[in-house]
């Protein structure tokens, strides 16, 4: 179990990560989603023991670990824009194995194996300037898998990959996890990939974990102009009403399960009612990490996602392009 406990991390006095607890259990498939600048890469660097947190502890199997220690060999990070050493692809794959003193025969066996699985065997003799960005990313993942870490951290692993390469990558990770108890923690800004692949999807916004699922997160500025706890914040072209005593910069989270979906505006106590059109429907399997149901994405002046049942989709005849009304109470909006 790799854990961050009471971790706060600052760059130049600015808090970029503030987590009470973040754990990656053995064999888990965790996805961390969030917009650029939400702290995903910092989180992964702390988990990878590449940086020491400004405050708090990193624990591996209950023991406090620090950068530079032997614990780092249990965790390997593939950065968002990975870099290869000035050497051939094969020499890059050999690197982590050589520093572990693994025998030549075993080094060759592992390289052939991982190169075959990630379809990079034809690249083994090439050097970094002869590779595309997508190929560099695949080689970097192969290089990390070759050392067989207990925890593999991937920062936007499919950002430079085409769809086929991304599927190959996710299939390889699934095969690896089926073969041995490998925990994977993946940072992504693509919810679809996160839900398709991970058992556990967590959202990060402004360095903090979201208390709700990662959809419908908005960075806003709550002004003091309004009286009482009912505040309105501009999001896209709409104003979202929220009950909060917080002022200043904040994150608004609208839980998708708290959004009522209808064809026409409802006479209700909901302070937030927005009309728009459905842009997409996505069905999540019960084991797919999304909790089941149909994710209805609509453009209501801002893109919002609601989760409804299959029956509701049928009854309301929801389809891409159909008109829709999203309603939710001000008290349903989480502010943090």
């Amino acid at each position, binding site marked *: 179990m790799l854990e961050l406990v009471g971790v706060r991390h600052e760059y130049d006095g600015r808090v970029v990560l503030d987590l009470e607890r973040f754990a990656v259990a053995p064999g888990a498939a965790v996805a961390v989603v969030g917009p650029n600048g939400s702290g995903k890469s910092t989180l992964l660097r702390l988990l990878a023991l590449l940086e020491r947190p400004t405050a708090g502890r990193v624990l591996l199997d209950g023991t406090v670990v620090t950068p530079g220690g032997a614990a780092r060999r249990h965790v*390997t990070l593939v950065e968002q824009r990975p870099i290869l050493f000035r050497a051939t692809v094969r020499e890059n794959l050999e690197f*982590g194995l050589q520093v572990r003193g693994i025998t030549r025969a075993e080094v060759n066996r592992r390289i052939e194996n991982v190169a075959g699985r990630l379809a990079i065997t034809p690249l083994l003799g090439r050097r970094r300037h002869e590779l595309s960005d997508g190929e560099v990313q695949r080689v970097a993942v192969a290089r990390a898998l070759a050392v067989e870490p207990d925890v593999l951290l991937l920062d936007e692993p499919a950002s430079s990959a085409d769809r086929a390469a991304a599927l190959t990558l996710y299939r390889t990770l699934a095969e690896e996890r089926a073969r041995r108890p490998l925990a994977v923690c993946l940072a992504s800004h693509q919810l679809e990939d996160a839900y398709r692949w991970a058992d556990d999807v967590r959202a990060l916004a402004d360095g903090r974990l979201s208390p709700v699922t990662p959809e419908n997160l908005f960075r806003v500025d709550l002004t003091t102009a309004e009286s009482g706890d009912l505040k309105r914040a501009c999001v896209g072209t709409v104003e979202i009403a929220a009950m909060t005593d917080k002022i200043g910069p904040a994150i608004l989270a609208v839980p998708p399960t708290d959004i009522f979906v209808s064809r026409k505006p409802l006479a209700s106590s909901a302070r937030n009612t927005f009309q728009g059109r459905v842009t997409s429907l996505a069905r999540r399997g019960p084991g797919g990490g999304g909790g089941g149901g149909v994710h209805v994405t609509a453009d209501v002046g801002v893109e919002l996602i609601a989760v409804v049942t299959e029956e509701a989709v049928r009854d309301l005849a929801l389809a891409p392009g159909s008109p829709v009304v999203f309603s939710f109470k001000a008290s349903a909006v989480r502010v943090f």
Partner: protein
Amino acid sequence: MDFLAEGFRRALALLFSGDAEVYGIALLTLKIGIVATVLACGLGLPLGFVLATRPFWGRRAALTVVNTALAFPTVVLGLLLYGLLSRRGPLAAVGWLYTWQAIALGDVLLALPIAAALAAAAVQGVDPRIRRTAETLGAGRWRTAWTVAREARFALAAVITTAFGHVVAEIGSAMTVGGNIRGQTRTLTTAVALYTSQGDFGLALALGLILLLLALLVNVALQTLQGRGHA
């Protein structure tokens, strides 16, 4: 023009006739250059690496000192070294004044800040992801340092070349602590100065050409060692 052409003719004649004095001076210069470059880079490259990668109290001040030392006048350096090595100096017992070792020592002190400052810049130029990648793949401190240095090898080779170039071209300190003694401490630069002042332009030019040849050979050797520019 006749004067210049005559100078070139005499230079070539001296070079190809295998003149013992000319080649003696060249070999001594080469010996001092190699010894001083090895020592200066042996100390300066690790120092530059530490300055570039290890955060410590006073690092910025240390970098400032090293960068300032780049512009230290060689004549003043020679003067200080003369004071230390002369009979009344604290290092008189070493007995190095007017020896090739004194010239080498001056050259080391001259090239050390060059090696350190340029090595620090070279290492700072390496993408920080290289260090992180080496670390996350399990490399310890030394292996990580070696990996970073390997990435900077072209720039570090240029540092060595620059240091050697400064060492063999240096004259102020060599003249002061070496004394330009024929057959003992006469280097290419001090000899060129002497023969020019004596009006022997051909001999001075021959020695100058050898100096250029030395710099060229060192550059070619280092480029070969770098592995012919593989990325």
